């Protein structure tokens, strides 16, 4: 709809003019920043060294890297830019483009150039990029117009990095606005972007709605990922070239902030690595010792933990003893065999419980907008262990992609198909049950996998696909009889890693998403001394205090009785 705007531009212009008369003071209209001709020569030099590789010789978004990227690089020729402060369909300001170059577009291949290029180089390259636009004209004062949108300001005065402290009423009000405006139709019932699998951008390439629970991937987050302003801007301006419209007529500025507060409240507060704009992975998965029964139901309170880092948002009383959800970063397997350049999942959340009688449980969760409906390519997720833990010396591990000839791995894989599912279904409140099959195999290299012939030992005890999130609960006894099974010792650091296959993307075998080696440890139960030692130490200290008082008083008495002579210094 936006790319048709060229023909109807005059009409839009008139309309915008009328609207701007109506809304005097809410927005200001003007002409685009013209191309600064004197900077083009310099900008061209920067472009042809740094940008041409993705954006192409003519700026068509068709550089050598383009075909292996999802999201594809921007095609500059139509003058369609996503992150702006101007109205839908309009050209961006210079400042918009400069900020995009400086901060990059998180979640895509566009890096932040602010620390790499000099200020004058960025200024120049932005002018050159503007000169690559062919279908529009930044110098056309008659037909082009830009209207700077009015965003208001943060009504709660919250600050970065985490923007905590927005009142719950505002967030709840935001949720109502979310429902009223049907945002779920694309962004899904819980904001994981799982609403609509059929969307296309203006060039006919498939496009996905943003996953609000991974706000570090918001393209326009300007490296301030939890700032509700980013969302207010997107709601106000829309994203040119995509199905995301603006809501300037439908939602008041005040309500946009509330909606933004709701959207940002969904995003777990994790420490974000400034260099990569991604959460810092939790490299140690602690399995919590659990006295008695471990409930094999994912929705049991025992397995409820928040994705927030407990150091940033303290956990509620009843969840305080629950295992932490550990963030595991995934990347495409681009090392061996058939490589996966555009994985659909880039992280997992893993939590774990154990005890000696029941064995060990790992709950693996991840966001995936759409599951496979092709039984030839089921979705799958797997846990990888060293098969011969006892043979490893020091930090030694098997090769992280399915082991190597000397050091085999033990892989537990759950493949699953959702029941009664179609990716175009409306969001379903209770989620979808999964048909899960578990297979265990040993790897001695990605091309040397051997299914185990021993009795199966790993079970998936519960699973669900709910509002764009898969949850799989793995279970196994600590030890087994299998020669090639990992034997899991308590209180030891054990290497662990993860694989994930998106059936919808036809991922299979080594064409998958992969994590590096993490560690897991079965934490021992809390020692009894924890309960009796502190009081003992406190009582001993009270005794010491009494002794100190007695000694001091005795000295005083000796002075008073004249048994000991005090020095006669003045005081």
């Amino acid at each position, binding site marked *: 709809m936006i790319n048709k705007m060229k023909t109807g531009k005059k009409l839009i212009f008139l309309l915008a003019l009328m609207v701007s008369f109506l809304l005097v003071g809410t927005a200001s209209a003007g002409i685009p920043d013209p191309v600064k001709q004197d900077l083009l020569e310099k900008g061209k030099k920067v472009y042809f060294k740094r940008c041409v590789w993705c954006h192409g010789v003519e700026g068509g978004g068709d550089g050598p890297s383009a075909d292996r990227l999802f999201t594809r690089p921007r095609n500059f020729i139509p003058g369609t830019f996503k992150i702006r402060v101007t109205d839908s369909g309009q050209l961006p300001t210079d400042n918009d483009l400069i900020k995009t170059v400086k901060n990059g577009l998180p979640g895509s291949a566009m890096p932040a150039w602010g620390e790499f290029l000099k200020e004058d180089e960025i200024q120049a390259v932005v002018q050159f990029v503007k000169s690559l636009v062919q279908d529009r004209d930044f110098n056309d004062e008659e037909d082009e117009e830009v209207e700077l949108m009015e965003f208001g300001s943060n009504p709660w005065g919250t600050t970065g990095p985490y923007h905590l402290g927005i009142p719950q009423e505002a967030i709840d009000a935001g949720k109502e606005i979310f429902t009223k405006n049907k945002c779920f139709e694309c962004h899904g019932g819980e904001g994981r972007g799982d609403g609509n699998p059929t969307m296309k951008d203006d060039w006919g390439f498939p496009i996905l709605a943003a996953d609000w629970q991974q706000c570090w991937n918001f393209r326009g987050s300007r490296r301030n990922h939890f700032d509700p302003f980013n969302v207010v801007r997107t709601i106000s301006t829309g994203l040119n070239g995509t199905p995301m419209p603006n809501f300037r007529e439908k939602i008041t500025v005040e309500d946009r902030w509330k909606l933004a507060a709701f959207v940002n409240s969904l995003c777990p507060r994790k420490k974000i690595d400034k260099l990569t704009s991604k959460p810092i992975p939790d490299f140690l998965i602690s399995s919590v010792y659990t006295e008695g029964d471990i409930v094999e139901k994912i929705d049991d309170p025992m397995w409820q933990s928040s994705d927030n880092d407990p150091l940033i948002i303290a956990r509620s009383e009843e969840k305080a003893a629950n295992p932490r959800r550990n963030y595991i970063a995934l990347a495409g397997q681009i090392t061996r065999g058939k490589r996966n350049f555009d994985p659909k999942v880039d992280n997992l959340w893993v939590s774990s419980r154990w005890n000696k009688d029941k064995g060990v449980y790992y709950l693996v969760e991840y966001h995936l907008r759409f599951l496979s409906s092709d039984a030839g390519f089921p979705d799958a997720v797997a846990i990888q262990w060293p098969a011969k833990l006892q043979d490893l010396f020091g930090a030694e591990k098997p090769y992280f992609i399915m082991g190597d000839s000397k050091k085999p791995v033990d892989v537990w894989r759950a493949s699953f198909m959702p029941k009664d599912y179609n990716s175009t279904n409306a969001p379903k409140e209770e989620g979808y049950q999964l048909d899960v099959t578990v297979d265990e195999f040993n790897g001695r290299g990605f091309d040397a996998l051997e299914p185990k012939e021993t009795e199966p030992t790993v079970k998936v005890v519960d699973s669900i696909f709910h509002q764009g999130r898969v949850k799989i609960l793995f279970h196994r006894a600590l030890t087994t009889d299998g020669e090639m099974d990992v034997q899991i010792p308590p209180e030891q650091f054990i290497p662990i890693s993860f694989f994930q296959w998106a059936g919808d993307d036809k991922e299979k075998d080594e064409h998958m998403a992969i994590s590096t080696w993490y*560690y897991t440890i079965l934490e021992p139960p809390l020692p009894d001394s924890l309960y009796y030692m502190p009081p003992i130490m*406190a009582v001993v200290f009270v005794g010491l*205090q009494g002794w100190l008082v007695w000694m001091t008083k005795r000295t005083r008495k000796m002075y008073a009785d004249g048994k000991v002579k005090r020095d006669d210094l003045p005081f």
Partner: protein
Amino acid sequence: MNKSFLSLILAVAGWAVFHFGLFPIFTPAEPGMLINRYVYFLLFCFYLIIVNVGMKLKPAMALRALYVWMLGFYFYDHILSPHVPWTLFITYMMLWTIGTFLYISQDPVTFREFRAPIVKTIIGEYKLARIVAFSVLPVLVGWATYQSIYPSFAEPVELRTVHPAPPASTKVHGKTYMLEKISNPFRIDEQDNYKDSFPFLDADKQEYMKFVTEGGTIFFQNCHYCHGDQLNGLGMFAHAFNPTPANFIDPGTIAMLQESFLFWRVSKGGPGLPNESTPWSSAMPPWEEHLTTDEIWKVILFEYWYTGWHPRTFDDESAVGE
């Protein structure tokens, strides 16, 4: 005593004003000669001295000692930038504590003055202080014991050799190369002559730039996922891998290596590393599986051209000896 109390209030209030009001002003993005954190600290010290001397408050010795000690703590914990590692911090604070005691015990009078309130608390002349101190301290001891017994686990630290010694020879695509003997077949000219030439634009005119363009094309189809569009090791997949991908901008990587070393590392990838370089977790592919020998050399050519580094070379003759 009242004057001591006034001094304490002025010190705490003054600190709050300085810390929350002035400190942000004195720590701008680009500190100047006057507007910097150390000047701020000096100002705060002056404030304390002027208030106490100017108003003739003569705070108790114990309070003065507390000021001195806290100033040291504040300096090392907040002012000194970048923050020193905590082991060093503890060492500094121990020295500072010893210094504070030297200040206290500079003569027997000050020492006794320092001691007086403590003794009065112990024998009960300051009743409230004794009740508070004697009930809070055992609780603190109990809490500290709890904290020290509570089991905590941190991931093990692993060290690895980033640039291991290369082998004498390597076999790529069926051909054996002696690493000391080989050089980049596409380095047909002095790299610096092409500083102001551009890929694609000059690829038709200059053969060298044709090779650079081809190398860059391969890089941006295969390598940028990890090593980054800026060749700084921050590609879109970089955060998922450990060890993190090499940063070619850094003077400690390709700038100090020979091209033949790169040829070996690129061809054999992670699995070709010796054990001290943790071959099991390196995500570097053995590129001989995906690229031809020529393509590998062109990527190497591109990496040096893009970063501006020059590969290390062997000297023809030893400079020492004879």
